């Protein structure tokens, strides 16, 4: 730098000090961007649909964004005690006339619902799911996403067990999607890790799952439990929708979900059906904000910075308790409903999931 650049050097020195973005901020922003990337692929027909704003304190935005796009769906697995044939039907609704049916011989289905008096755990549900029959070679997910603004849209996802993925706005478009070839949507690492975790202890399942799905910086010592929980919660729910009907995968996902803090599991009913409500309550205290303890320990410039960050967080309108609820079939763990009560998103996704044969859509 020459002397004549002293004014530039002075300017450089005057640049307000900025701490590097923390991992929480980076992860949240990146997730929202990738959710938008998904949106761009899935929502060409809805260019004016506002992007769902991610929550500041948790990666729920990742889920919201992806739920908006990927949205799985649910179907009730109607089982007959002692029968050797399992028939998949859609529950009543917009897609009820488009039911794919698969019959398989020689497989019995679970028949006993959880007792209302018995505490329900995801691990117990995992054991139940493991006993379920395997049918078809693909999971069809039809979804309707409704926003508080009144906007809504539908989507149809077809996840083949071999990892291929197809999307269309409506189920009727899947044949054309099949002709066009598989699209990029890589849940395979999550699904493979979940399958391996089916019989593992929950903490072991968590570690393996995290290792498979998360970039390195989620896994290191710098990532908080909340940060790791976030990506697990979001990815596990996506995988849950994509792998419906694959008992080992479903069981592994439930095992992993059981390790996520702040998750409660409650029995309930939905459309007359016995269900489990998996509730994630995000604490009001944002994990990215400095704690009072950290502030108290700090001195000088660092303390001033931490106090400033805490003040920013306190004013953040996005900070606050949030409740996300996933409603799942208490026999099969099939997703039925996703609700986010956050005021700025408030999306409700209704799922219709079924196991199908890819050949029904011309896919070999």
């Amino acid at each position: 730098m020459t002397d004549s650049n002293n004014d530039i050097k002075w300017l450089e020195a005057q640049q307000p000090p900025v701490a590097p973005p923390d991992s929480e901020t980076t992860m949240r922003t990146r997730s929202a961007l990738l959710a938008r990337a998904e949106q761009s692929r899935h929502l060409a027909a809805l260019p004016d649909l506002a992007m769902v704003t991610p929550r500041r304190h948790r990666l729920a935005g990742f889920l919201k964004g992806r739920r908006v796009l990927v949205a799985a769906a649910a179907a009730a697995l109607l089982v007959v005690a002692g029968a050797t044939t399992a028939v998949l039907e859609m529950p009543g609704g917009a897609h009820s006339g488009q039911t794919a049916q698969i019959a398989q011989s020689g497989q019995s289905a679970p028949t006993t619902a959880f007792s209302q008096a018995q505490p329900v755990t995801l691990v117990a549900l995992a054991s139940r799911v493991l006993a379920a029959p395997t049918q078809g070679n693909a999971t069809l997910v039809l979804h309707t996403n409704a926003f508080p603004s009144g906007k809504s849209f539908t989507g149809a996802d077809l996840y083949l067990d071999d990892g291929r993925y197809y999307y269309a706005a409506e189920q009727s478009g899947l044949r054309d999607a099949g002709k066009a070839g598989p699209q990029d949507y890589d849940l395979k690492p999550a699904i493979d890790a979940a399958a391996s975790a089916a019989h593992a202890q929950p903490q072991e399942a968590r570690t393996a799952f995290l290792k498979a799905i998360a970039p390195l910086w989620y896994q290191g010592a710098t990532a908080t439990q909340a940060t790791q929980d976030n990506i697990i919660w979001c990815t596990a729910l996506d995988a849950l929708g994509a792998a419906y009907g694959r008992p080992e995968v479903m069981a592994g996902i439930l095992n992993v979900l059981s390790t996520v803090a702040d998750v409660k599991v409650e029995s309930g009913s939905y459309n007359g059906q016995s269900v489990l409500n998996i509730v994630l309550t995000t604490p009001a205290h944002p994990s990215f904000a400095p704690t009072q303890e950290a502030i108290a320990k700090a001195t000088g410039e660092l303390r001033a910075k931490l106090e400033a960050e805490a003040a920013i967080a306190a004013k953040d309108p996005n900070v606050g308790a949030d409740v996300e609820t996933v409603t799942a079939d208490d026999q099969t763990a099939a997703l039925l409903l996703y609700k986010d009560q956050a005021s700025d998103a408030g999306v409700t996704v209704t799922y219709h999931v079924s196991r199908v044969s890819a050949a029904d859509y011309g896919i070999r």
Partner: protein
Amino acid sequence: MSFDTQRTLVDSDAVLIARSLATPQAFGEVFDRHWPSVYRYCRSRAGADGEDLAAETFRLAFDLRGTYESERVDARPWLLGLATNLIRNHLRRCDRGARAVARMPEQDGSENLMEETAIGRAEAALLGPMLAQALDGIPSSDRDALLLMAWNGLRYEEVAEALDIPLGTVRSRISRARLRLRARLMELGVGPDGLEPDLLS
């Protein structure tokens, strides 16, 4: 996955952006590369709001990626240019006392200048009194060019990319801005502690 990682490490931003047209998720790598610098720049200029502006920069970049010129290997100038526009608009919105901005007729056949030489109150508050005084009187378009160079280390060519203006215009803007800055520093009596003596000589 490891193959992807190795591949993207050697891919240019232009390649990644082109790839993201067919595979939108590829844009995540562009984010990974440039998020820290865009974040720092936005926070420096817009304070706490800079975080949202940095995020908005990438959202906008994603939406505009189809217009990215493939010969631009490094996307950082482009991203910082988007950020600069967002910051400018943000500061205008924030500054309730901003004067009405009048468009000047085209000058020298090369540029439209905004008659906005007084630094806004919002911007002044964010920059701090010394820096605000030093930059006051420098038109916002000149300030943008100057700060892109000083705070991000962009070369003239990169500033031109960032602001989508001719190289000659960048030179004239930065030259004009530096002349005013030096004059302001002289007026402010920024002494040896803040500035090398030769600047005051």
